[in-house]
């Protein structure tokens, strides 16, 4: 390391030598930086998982345009949309097909713990609106009270989920009815439920008798190949007389949902603050380490000043220390952060993973904030007056 830094800076790696001179303090400083990194990784991981969990149900469906109620900020929030607008939309020449999507949570009383499944009611006759991973099983939903279960749902044992097949279905009671799961798909727990379930719209209406077939939660539209979604949406907005409805591309709906979760929902704001606090903790730790180090070496720095070394030299030493702390503190932070996220992901089934972009972002952030701390710490160097040495 010393050799590498010597080549890098073209001078004695004084920062490195200073830091490693007191190994116990160096280890404590690295532990501090690693701790701040773990804090940021965990908060960022949770925040990202919220994003991934928000977008995950959108992946179950394939659509170009989505029509929702004015208050439908999220997929499972807001009022209903009158089915008549689906028929109205079909009048546009570029709209090839459309379907209603029903959404509600159903409780499932399990022996170990009770879970809640976000249930989608779909028209099994329109498999084109389902992702290819689910389309193959959609015919099973033609059977009354049939379901396709999320095999990654919290509270559903892996072996139990793996045993679910048309030949060995799993029956369970919910909402006063007996549902039978004939197949599974890969979903996972989210923040609004423990997992997902697909049923036909007819089964959905049996589960929720108060709901009307004429009022799904959203309307999904598929456009003809080559159609310009922006133009179609503009036309639909004039075609559909209820101006309060939100008519947007399916991708935009997903992104709006994500933004809503991250910036308007308390959980998103809390996780965002968590990241900020992690960054601030890291900033304070690195500042404290560097500032103490500068204070401890004021006499040596004053000697160097007397010898003719300029401010850039001292800034270089402190930034060298900041860089060493950032890089060497990041690595254990990455390992521990990955382990914690993996463990939390396994327990919660949330998509808690260490992504390369997350690791790179935190690494660059650590370097930038460490350098910033170092730059602030150099202010203490002003106290190193070489005239005081005599």
């Amino acid at each position, binding site marked *: 390391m010393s050799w590498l830094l010597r080549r890098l800076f*073209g001078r004695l790696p*004084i920062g490195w030598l200073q830091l490693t001179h007191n190994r116990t303090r160096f280890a404590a400083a690295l532990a501090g930086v690693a701790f701040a990194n773990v804090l940021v990784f965990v908060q960022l991981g949770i925040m990202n998982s919220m994003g991934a969990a928000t977008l995950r149900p959108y992946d179950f469906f394939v659509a170009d345009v989505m029509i929702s109620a004015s208050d439908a900020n999220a997929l499972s929030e807001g009022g209903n949309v009158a089915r008549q607008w689906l028929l109205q939309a079909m009048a546009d020449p570029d709209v090839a097909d459309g379907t209603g999507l029903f959404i509600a949570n159903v409780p499932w009383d399990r022996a170990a713990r009770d879970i809640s499944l976000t249930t989608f009611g779909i028209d099994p006759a329109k498999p084109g609106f389902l992702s290819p991973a689910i389309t193959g099983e959609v015919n099973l939903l033609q059977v009354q009270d049939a379901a396709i279960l999320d095999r990654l749902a919290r509270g559903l044992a892996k072996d139990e989920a793996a045993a679910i097949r048309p030949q060995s279905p799993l029956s369970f009671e919910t909402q006063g009815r007996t549902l039978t799961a004939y197949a599974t798909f890969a979903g996972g727990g989210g923040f609004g439920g423990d997992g997902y379930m697909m049923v036909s719209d007819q089964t959905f209406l049996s589960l929720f008798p108060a709901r009307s077939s004429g009022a799904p939660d959203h309307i999904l539209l598929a456009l003809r190949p080559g159609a310009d979604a922006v133009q179609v949406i503009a036309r639909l907005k004039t075609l559909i007389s209820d101006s309060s409805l939100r008519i947007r591309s399916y991708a935009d709906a997903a992104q709006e949902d994500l933004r809503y979760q991250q910036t308007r929902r308390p959980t998103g704001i809390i996780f965002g603050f968590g990241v900020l606090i992690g960054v601030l903790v890291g900033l304070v730790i690195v500042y404290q380490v560097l500032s103490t180090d500068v204070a401890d070496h004021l006499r040596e720095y004053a000697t*160097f000043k*007397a*010898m*003719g070394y300029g401010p850039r030299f001292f800034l270089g030493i402190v930034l060298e220390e900041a860089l060493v702390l950032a890089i060497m503190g990041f690595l254990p932070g990455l390992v521990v952060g990955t382990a914690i996220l993996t463990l939390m992901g396994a327990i919660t089934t949330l998509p808690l993973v260490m992504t390369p972009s997350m690791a790179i972002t935190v690494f660059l952030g650590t370097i930038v904030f460490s350098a910033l701390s170092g730059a602030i710490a150099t202010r203490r160097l002003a106290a190193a007056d070489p*005239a005081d*040495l005599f």
Partner: protein
Amino acid sequence: MENPNIIEVAGLNHWFGSGDVRKQALFDVNLSLPRGSFTVLMGPSGSGKTTVLTLIGCLRAVQDGSVRLLGQELNGADEAALVALRRRLGFIFQAHNLHESLTAVQNVIMGLQVHPGVPEDVAEQAAAHALGLVGLSDRIRYLPANLSGGQKQRVAVARALVGNPAMVLADEPTAALDKDSAGEVVDLLKRMGRARGTTTLLVTHDNRILDRADRILTLEDGRIVKIEDRAPH
């Protein structure tokens, strides 16, 4: 023709503090030091020795009077000029001020690294050579904590001289040393300075080393009260 004096001080006055607590520390100090000379500046505590040293060493701004170092006027010189001049000086402090994290040879390298463009291997060789000259060739990889007081001060001498400074300013370099070590350090300083043509100004209370000086300046209450020239030893 080159000025025979490396330093010329004329009518130098200096004050500390401001307002009611302003106190004059130096009064009309005049002195000159010939190149290559070994001068001792002595006087009681509070007489202004250190103030003279810091002014000549470009560590304080000259307030009144003239200080010409290496032909350059320090009164009114900007910080960059003072820093550039300091690079041509060698400093030795009472408390050696070696960097605790650096080995002896690394501390000496710091005396050379201040001059841009000195290749690393050349700096290392020169530092090791300088440590050899002060009798520490077997201690070059030692940290200061593992050296005796005399050895540390010898490292400081090597650090001050390795860059071939025009002038060495030493402040009580023997104060913390026993008689033998003090004599060794001063002899070393004088011998190496003479060999390199370096002018030395040494501030001390230590009467044990007066017989080694070419010139002795005595300062009392901020005034030079005695200049004693001696035959070079």
